[in-house]
């Protein structure tokens, strides 16, 4: 158990000394996962709204499918993206494999189902009278959506928090399409906290892994505090 304590001490040391490698990895984690979360939000929220407010055949099945995709293993997401962007894949010419961009794409895809599903849940939590009131006040489609979102902001931001959590904590897709590369330039590297944790773990450096895990949680805490602040505004 002393590895845990050691992990905490190590985490404190890494943070306190601004350990260059770790800071780079952490920064990359934040950039990639935040970008993916923002992208996913921009897609999932309108998509969820379109599904929730739309009436079309197969709506129920679609919602079921979305819920099912909550179980999509990150490795499978990674594999699918990998197949698409690897050199022989249809998008191979873009040379995206093993770049941070690829990781952003994979994480976006990964969190889309859960964020879309939670958006739908969030919207269904809004009092129907509120919806009617907005309509009766003459909201355009866009105004309607914006205001419904405002009413559901608590739940939608909770969805964002969950999406971010899933993005920053996943490793399967990140390693498959990113490759956990540590190059000398920041932009060519794709090592993020989770892949680094995996690596440290596979090397048997448990306390180092735990230290990185704590750094990750510290980032998550900061992001969550921001989200909570917005929620309660």
């Amino acid at each position: 158990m002393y590895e845990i304590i050691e992990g905490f001490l190590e985490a404190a040391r890494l943070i306190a000394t601004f350990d260059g490698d770790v800071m780079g990895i952490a920064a990359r984690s934040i950039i990639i996962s935040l970008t993916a979360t923002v992208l996913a939000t921009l897609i999932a929220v309108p998509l969820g709204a379109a599904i929730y407010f739309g009436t079309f055949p197969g709506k129920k099945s679609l919602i079921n499918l979305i819920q099912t995709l909550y179980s999509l293993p990150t490795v499978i997401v990674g594999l699918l993206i990998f197949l698409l962007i690897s050199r022989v894949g249809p998008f191979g010419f873009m040379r995206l494999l093993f770049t941070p961009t690829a990781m952003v794409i994979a994480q976006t895809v990964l969190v889309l189902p859960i964020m879309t599903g939670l958006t739908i849940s969030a919207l269904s939590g809004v009092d129907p009278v509120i919806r009617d009131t907005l309509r009766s006040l003459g909201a355009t489609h866009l105004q309607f959506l914006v205001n419904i979102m405002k009413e559901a902001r608590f739940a939608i931001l909770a969805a964002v928090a969950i999406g971010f959590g899933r993005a920053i904590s996943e490793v399967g897709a990140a390693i498959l399409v990113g490759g956990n590369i540590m190059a000398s330039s920041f932009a060519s590297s794709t090592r993020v906290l989770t892949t680094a944790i995996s690596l440290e773990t596979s090397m048997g450096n448990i306390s180092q892994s735990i230290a990185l895990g704590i750094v990750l949680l510290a980032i998550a805490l900061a992001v969550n505090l921001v989200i909570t602040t917005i929620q309660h505004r």
Partner: protein
Amino acid sequence: MIELDNVSKQFDGPAVLAGVTARIRRGEIFTVIGPSGSGKSTLLRLIDLLDSPTGGTIRVNGTDIHANGEESLRIRRMMGMVFQKPAVFNTTVTENVAVGLRFRGAEERVVREKVEEALAMVGLADYGERRARTLSGGEMQRVALARAMVIEPEILLMDEPTANLDPVSVEKIEELVLRINRDLGTTILFSTHDMYQGQRLAHRVGVLMNGIFAQVGTPREVFTLPATREVARFVGIENIIDGVVVAENGISVIDAGGIRIRARSPLSRGEQVALCIRSEDLRVFLEEGGKTHLNGNTLPGTVASIVPRGPFSRVTVDCGFALSSVLSWKAVDNLGIREGSRVTVSFAAESVHVIRQE
């Protein structure tokens, strides 16, 4: 102008609306009254495009509002609605009221001014910064009212807008409604279960019953000349007596279980009728003390009960059938009647409204 043309609406069960027809004129205040569950809210929601009718058409200024997908925003923006159980947005009172203006792209300065004015009008001038979710029932209802009014709609729909308000607030809101109607020419359609309110405010009243308008008319018509027995009951006519026309020469005579009542009516002998007599039109005298009305009715009876009702007492007299009359407390005291007292009830033939029974 709103035209309701054979509008019907059915949810899962039996039809709620089954052919509602009426024309609400521009600038009119039209009240929908009707029992709980008769479809008042449903009707208002159909007009506000919040639901679609199962049959019939609703035209606003000639446009079939449900036929025109692209037009619906424009049509909706002509209307404002206050819901029966208003919901407020989870923000400040000011922001709640401002929403409609913002939707219409009003300038911030204009928004601020109008919202302030609207809040003052509903008596919530100091409530602007309060979070709307913490308001009391009546306060919320007033916010909803201000929210709908502030956009100055051409048509204002209100679903029991004063249901949660005390009489003083109700009076203020009523004055407001009258003012909006008068100053802005707003067409106002509202439902209420407060018949007196309907009467005070409305140019015309529609009585929604069993899925249709059982009667549409001026308040006075509806209140004094109800078209059906149910309407009569609903508008508060306490004395409704069944009978058969037995004579008809200017003044009809109706036999009600052996007791003969004179009334003005064009119906012919043998017809089954219901007689409506407003309790205010009855006079009560001690024993044989009353003067006999020529062509009027004078019935002996026993006081069955005396119940306070507002500043009045309701005195029910058993004359073979029960007749309720409303007397001031003082009158009751002066007469010195109590339960069991022998009295005479009298009323004019003109006070009897005769309805043909189907």
